[in-house]
């Protein structure tokens, strides 16, 4: 195994333990668990933080509103017999409703991805800290 990771064989307990020789990664964090983010808008607006459920609710609301618009378009076009009067409803309510549905689903998707990314980063940070402590503990044995 080449590079910063190498296998070392010392005692039976330490067999097959991979030590990390790369310099420690300094990760800046926010007060509520945000990693790799400079203090900015998400710190000032709690609703924009990755773990906040607000974006998900907004996405769901937009999607429902989109479906409601499509139903309104259906009701209005069914009440007309003149195509020239139906087309504006088709565009303003029908196609706009479809657009709102797509936007709402995208907002929900992005909110879910941000949340999962933050949880994964927090876990990797804990794992990295534990590995660093283990490396330090094993390294103290080397110095003796």
């Amino acid at each position: 195994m080449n590079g910063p990771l190498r296998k070392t064989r010392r005692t039976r307990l330490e067999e097959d333990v991979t030590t990390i020789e790369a310099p420690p990664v300094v990760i800046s964090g926010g007060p509520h668990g945000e990693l790799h983010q400079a203090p900015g808008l998400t710190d000032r607006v709690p609703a924009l933080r990755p773990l906040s459920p607000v974006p998900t609710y907004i996405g769901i609301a937009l999607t429902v509103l989109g479906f409601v618009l499509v139903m309104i378009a259906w009701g209005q076009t069914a009440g007309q017999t003149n195509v020239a009067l139906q087309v504006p409803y088709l565009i303003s309510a029908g196609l706009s409703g479809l657009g709102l549905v797509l936007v709402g689903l995208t907002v929900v998707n992005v909110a879910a991805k941000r949340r999962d990314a933050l949880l994964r980063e927090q876990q990797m940070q804990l794992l990295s800290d534990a590995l660093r402590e283990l490396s330090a503990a094993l390294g103290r044995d080397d110095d003796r």
Partner: protein
Amino acid sequence: MSEIWRILRDPRVSTTLVLAAVVVGGFALLGQGYRGAAATLFVPYQVPFVVSGAIAGLALVGAGLALLSIHLERTEAAQERREIAALQRDVLRLLARAPEARRRPSR
């Protein structure tokens, strides 16, 4: 039968089935819109079918597929977090045994 019921009660399976049903429902709406529009030659009567069948059906298909994609990704992410948590426990176990290893005579 009980095995099938147990599999169906798994939240991952039931959610996937429900969202797949939403997608199928969207295609069914599209089919109904086609049937309604094809049944008349009078355009003002066809337009409501376009709206309720085609546009609404398309919206349902898109919503079902998007939600299915989100659900599958979150299921995989949760599985990944479980595996990383197991790795964390192993590392902490090794860390706890490190002082014991130092006390043993080296070979």
